[in-house]
């Protein structure tokens, strides 16, 4: 880490958490908004649920802590390693002959988005977001308390 970053390393971990959770919240919102999209703009099949992948963010350059033999690389926060399609859960087929995208059997292939589950994920992400805000505030209070020691 360069120069003044070490002083704020605790807080930057929280900041990375906030950014990552924000991406997750945005993706969940997109899933919910597209829960009924049976045909995409390019004509392909129904909307595919998106999932966010998190990974530890490692210190860019090895400092004293990270290079001690036997110790793991220093993690300084979290990052979004990717946003991908959820290929594990299947599309749901429902019976709706009047639907514009119904096939010959009157069946419609719906996106693999379960709105209830998305809402639960949204609440989890919000709680994580707030927890990161709390951690950031704690860092600030500790720093202010430390500076007051000089008075």
């Amino acid at each position: 880490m360069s120069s003044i970053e070490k002083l704020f390393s605790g807080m930057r971990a929280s900041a990375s958490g906030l950014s990552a959770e924000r991406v997750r919240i945005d993706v969940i919102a997109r899933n919910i908004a597209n829960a009924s999209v049976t045909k995409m703009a390019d004509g392909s099949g129904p909307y595919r649920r998106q999932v966010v992948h998190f990974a530890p963010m490692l210190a860019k350059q090895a400092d004293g802590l990270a290079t001690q033999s036997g110790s793991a690389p220093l993690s300084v926060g979290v990052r979004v390693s990717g946003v991908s399609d959820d290929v594990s859960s299947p599309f749901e087929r429902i019976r709706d002959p009047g639907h514009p995208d119904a096939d010959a059997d009157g069946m419609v292939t719906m996106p693999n988005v379960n709105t209830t589950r998305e809402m639960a994920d949204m609440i989890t992400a919000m709680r994580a977001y707030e927890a990161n805000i709390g951690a950031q505030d704690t860092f600030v209070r500790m720093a202010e308390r430390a500076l007051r020691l000089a008075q």
Partner: protein
Amino acid sequence: MVDRIGSQTSLAQAAIEAALKRQSAALERLSQAASPASESAPAVDFSSALKSGISEIDAQVKRADTLALDVATGKVTDFHEVAAALKQSDLSLRFALEVRNKFIDAYREVMRMGV
């Protein structure tokens, strides 16, 4: 305006250093004059005690001097480090000033007692 304040404090600094030098020189002369009569007395060298006191003041303040640059360039990694360094400098300064004042008082007392 900031420049003028800077140069004013530089002038004040120069004046204080000059005053301290004069004080130190005067006490040196006095202690040299008094020393023949006090050969048998406990050897308290006011002059060198005063000098070391002044250089101690100087050293402690110098520690606080580079603190801001150390923070800016990342040599300081925790906020309590800053507070501790400031507090140490301040306390050391107060202690050194107090020691110096006590020496001066004691010296004046001794001189008043009759040479």
